[in-house]
């Protein structure tokens, strides 16, 4: 479905995840974060960029792997993106929700 955010039309799936990463930019990211009531700090951005990079390299994302990434630890990840951090952070980063298709 289509959605207008930060003055841009983006395509999202039924859970609100971008289906085409090329539609993402930092303004879209900020607007998606605002929807989740998360004001983005420099630390948030470091993590979001890390997640996007991992996605680009086709690395399967998991809380455990992020805890060992050296970019952040799990405790901080939860503080920055409360409740379900991986789901929230990937949505803001414009990348797919990590599949636990197993």
């Amino acid at each position, binding site marked *: 479905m289509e959605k207008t955010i930060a003055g841009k039309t983006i395509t999202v799936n039924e859970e609100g995840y971008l289906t085409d990463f090329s539609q993402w930019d930092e303004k879209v990211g900020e607007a998606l974060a605002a929807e989740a009531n998360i004001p983005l700090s420099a630390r948030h951005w470091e993590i979001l960029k890390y997640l996007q990079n991992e996605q680009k390299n086709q690395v399967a994302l998991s*809380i455990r792997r992020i805890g*060992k990434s050296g970019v952040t630890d799990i*405790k901080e990840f*939860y503080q920055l993106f409360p*409740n*379900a951090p991986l*789901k929230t952070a990937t949505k803001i980063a414009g990348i797919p929700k990590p*599949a636990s*298709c*197993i």
Partner: protein
Amino acid sequence: MKNLVILGAGTAGTMMANHLVHHLKQPDWQITIIDERIEHHYQPGYLFLPFDIYKPKDIIKKIEDFIPKGVQLIKNNINRIVPAENKIQLEGGDEMAYDLLIIATGAKIAPEEIEGMKGAQWQKSVFDFYTYEGALALRNKLRKWQGGKLVVHITEMPIKCPVAPLEFAFLADSFFKHKDMRDKVEITYVTPLSGAFTKPKATETLEHFLVEKGIHIDHDFAIEHVDNEKKEIVDYGGRAIPFDLLVTVPTNKGDELIERSGMGDDLNYVPTHKATLQSKDHANIFVLGDASNIPASKAGSVAHFEAEILTENILRFIKGEPLKEEFDGHANCFIETGNGKALLIDFNYTHEPVEGSFPFPGLDHCNY
């Protein structure tokens, strides 16, 4: 004579020995299977032991009973795999060279990964049912338990048989009903996933069962530690869930052998090509069952389907032919839903389980 060595005489390794013995014969080939255990455990039976549905004799078999004639069985600890030299080092110093190696060393629980899990309450009010000892201790506990808060919990994915904790919750519901004490037990199902199962379609149906049985679900719970004094599990966000009896599925990891050999990922699973089952690092090593890192369920049914394709690929590899990229992640699971009833789900890498009656349910597609 060439050597094909299988590491692990569990479900996956045993199936490979039984397949390959028909194709690779002496004097051209010697097939050897190595395992340090003396017993073959039917692991799905661990689910039934706590509820006195199975007895230990239903689970414990002799390894020899399943190893075909013509296959050499060595009962010894494996110290290391040395892929650069195509050899295995056994405990005690013996070495064994291989031309082809199949790794089927499985996965097991690692409760030490979570602070406090193996603490003062371990096997007092904190139990696992993924080991024989754990399931037996839990049986003894349940025989005399008077009720309270039962929390069924998954630490993190992936785990062996992802439906087993759900089945445990369903069977607990009927167990306490039969004991006429369901009203004294509050059952909570706690998962790191967003819902009851890893597949959205099946989740809808399974969550309906949970509601129907009065089982509360807490999702997106990433455990940080077990508080043995307050008897709570606490997640990274600070959410605490109290328990009187915690039945947890700890982190699952591949065998330490994989770590000792420097061949695993961060959970000791061997990086494996998901369609051919060949090791990503060594052409003459193949991996099947729970030991691999492929994104399929860790279950005997998966090993069963893998074994058929792997047999073909090993024969192709020996003839120098290209491998078939045919493994599709096929799994099927019978799910015990309590009161003597069950349902069957069948899925693979791309197709989700669908609703309907066996064998012709509707068709649908997984969106990942």
